[in-house]
């Protein structure tokens, strides 16, 4: 029968906040069994929010609830020797070990891959860090904003004469989570074939410096072109920009002359279109975009983004509103595609705005089934039923703050 692609893969996540949890979340939704280790105080994301009514509660943090669907949650402190012993026992039942603990010295704890490989030759270990596990900046401290600047993405966002901007909502953490998930699947397919484990060194800065900004390296070597930031427009044939309208903003992109002419026609061929500043639209962007924006603004500011969306799409002009999150939750298209997932959680209640996945499989099941775990919810199920420890040990570990 139809199944899930990653049935029979067991993942142990020793992760915190976003990158490692997002990585294992992607794998959990396709059927992998994920056991998540939290320190006795809980994952950092439990304290981040958003919280219903803005009242902080570690069981109701939106970020945590979303990033940990379908996982089994246990508490464990691997920094304590007993905790480490339990971790080793868990690793015996693990195919993939995902870690993002950049502040810890794994070698000192006896948890680096070179050591683990000897004990678990089939293990696939993944380490997600801001700057990577080798190189001169290996031990630098870094948050999302720091790996964004080193990786180059920040240099491309914002106005040329103002502060460069970091992508919003920890895109670097999420990106690294997706990349690590891809690398893990490659390692799994490799292991299915060879029986050998692997080590994945996932740096957040590398993601920006390669598939994103790395795209522009050859253009620099070849022709000296540097990708710079240019505010709300792209320095190509006018117009490729985000512009304000009556009730928000719209994005319009007309690289082809016929698209530009259709755009003019949709606005009723205003007289200003014959202004000489539009003769060469590359020049328009580079020299006259402020004046040009003002002309467009005459029409844009009189119309709502939905009116503009309809008028321009009917005229086959590439354009769309700049949607906000609440608009997407209410959008007919998104509803018809059943993108958002509803989930009932014992503490946070029912929420209907968990993002789903962008790939609709005809066979593989790819939807979350269970809400995020409460703190330590599966301690007994994992420690006693799965690993065979007794209840007395459990309460002793609790007293010793191992779990």
């Amino acid at each position, binding site marked *: 029968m139809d199944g899930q692609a990653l049935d029979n893969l067991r993942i142990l996540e020793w992760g915190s906040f976003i990158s490692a949890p997002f990585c294992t979340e992607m794998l959990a939704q396709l059927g992998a069994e994920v056991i998540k280790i939290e320190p006795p105080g809980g994952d950092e994301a439990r304290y981040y929010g958003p919280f219903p009514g803005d009242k902080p509660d570690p069981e109701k943090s939106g970020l945590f609830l979303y990033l940990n669907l379908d996982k089994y949650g246990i508490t464990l402190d691997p920094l304590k020797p007993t905790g480490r012993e339990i971790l080793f026992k868990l690793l015996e039942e693990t195919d993939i070990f995902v870690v993002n603990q950049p502040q810890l010295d794994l070698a000192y704890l006896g948890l680096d891959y070179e050591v683990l490989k000897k004990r678990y030759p089939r293990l696939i270990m993944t380490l997600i860090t801001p700057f990577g596990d080798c190189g001169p900046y290996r031990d630098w401290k870094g948050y999302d904003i720091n790996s964004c600047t080193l990786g180059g993405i920040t240099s491309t966002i914002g106005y040329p004469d103002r502060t460069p901007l970091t992508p919003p909502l920890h895109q670097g953490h999420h990106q690294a989570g997706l990349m690590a998930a891809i690398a893990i699947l490659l390692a799994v397919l490799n292991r299915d074939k060879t029986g050998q484990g692997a080590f994945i060194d996932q740096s957040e800065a590398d993601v920006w410096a390669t598939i994103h900004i790395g795209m522009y390296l050859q253009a620099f070597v070849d022709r000296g072109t540097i990708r710079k930031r240019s505010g709300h427009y792209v320095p190509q044939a006018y117009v490729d920009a985000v512009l304000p309208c009556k009730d928000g903003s719209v994005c319009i992109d007309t690289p082809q002359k016929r698209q530009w002419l259709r755009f003019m026609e949709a606005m009723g061929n205003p007289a200003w279109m014959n202004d000489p500043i539009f003769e060469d639209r590359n020049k328009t962007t580079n020299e006259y975009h402020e004046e040009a924006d003002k002309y467009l603004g005459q029409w844009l500011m009189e119309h709502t983004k939905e009116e503009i969306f309809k008028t321009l799409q009917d005229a086959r002009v590439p354009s769309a*509103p700049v949607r906000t999150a609440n608009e997407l939750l209410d959008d007919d298209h998104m509803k018809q595609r059943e993108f958002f997932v509803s989930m009932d959680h014992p503490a946070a209640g029912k929420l209907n705005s968990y993002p789903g996945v962008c790939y609709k499989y005809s066979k593989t099941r790819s939807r979350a089934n269970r809400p995020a775990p409460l703190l330590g919810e599966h301690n007994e199920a994992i420690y006693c039923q799965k690993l065979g420890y007794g209840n007395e040990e459990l309460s002793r570990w609790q007293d010793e703050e191992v779990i």
Partner: protein
Amino acid sequence: MARRGGNLVMSNLPLAGYRVVDFGWVWAGTLLGSILGSYGAEVIKMESRRRIDGLRLGKVFKLGDELEKNPYFLNLNRNKLSTRINMAHEEGARLIRELVKKSDIVIENFTPGTLKKRGLDYESLAEVKPDIIMLSLSPMGQQGPLANLVTYAPVISALSGIDSMVGYPGENPIGFKHAYADVVASMSGLFSILAAVRHHAQTGQGQYIDLSQGEAVMPFMGEAFLASEMNNNVMGPQGNTSRTMAPHGVYPCIGDDKWVSIAVKTEEEWCSFCGVLGDPEWTKEDKFCTTAQRIAHVVELDEHVAAWTKNHDKYEITELLQKAGVAAAPMLDSSEILSDPHLKEREVFVDGEHPVVDKTVLYNWPWKMNGVDSRMQRAPLFGEHSEYVFSEILGFSQEEIENLKEQEVIY
């Protein structure tokens, strides 16, 4: 090691033995195939003079008209073979079905409905190859009211919601000015194919994957959706602000457009930060004594920080702060990535050779793996492997191939 159409076949790679019919073009449709090829799949790019990849023509990024030289094309089409085959010709479409019969994966990013007209949609292909895995990437998915939208990557980025949060706080959004949705969609597509390959290995089943590029960005902004549902809180342009850190920003340094990022989270980090600055008076003011206070007075705080950073070099500041246990990093642009010692040592880019381009410097994969082999081969010339595809895979004689060229099937 065998040689196939000029391409090294390495059987030790995880995807060795898989063949991919790749209709992908421009960016979102092409990136994933280059990585499948790197890990051993035989990826065959479908090309014809009727339909030349916009990047080969340089139209998309206005970088000249040489078919083989576009820097973006050279990145995105590595590890692929290229065959000329005209799908607009009935015989061309039939031969593509023959090729699919001998393949495992199909990738396409046409406007929804295009392949159906040629009898090359999933239903038609599954008739000749029941266990084919096929991925369709489109702006908003194959079905739904927005399925036939006229878009480019920036438009998708706007529709996905992410652009509404890119900009300076309190101002109009400016949006990502980089094809973010293309890259994220392509990598999500790669993930979905690899999982489908494993599904196939376990069950023998192929399947169809309908990927929406707009939706690909949404899982990266879960916080915004939940904030909206929980508290009706609509998140606007975020700037460089943080809810949990201050200072948290990008600050000017000595030099033209040189910047450094600094982020301070804990009390301990704040004390170290102040120490590096020499504990100036302003750091002792009440309004800067807790994270919450510093966030409340973030504009003034940033002015103080910038007054210090602007007299120093970005690498120098980074070193001073890192030594004190404070997170900082220089801002690099697309030329500086090439000279940064860390990125160099991590080999985030690779030098290569190419018959038409003097020297290539292309990005490497975003992960480093120990225990899984891969390969890196240059992008193919237009139609470079037509001979291999028609003679070795499809079994045509030289004479038949000449005929197909005359009929503009090989075009």
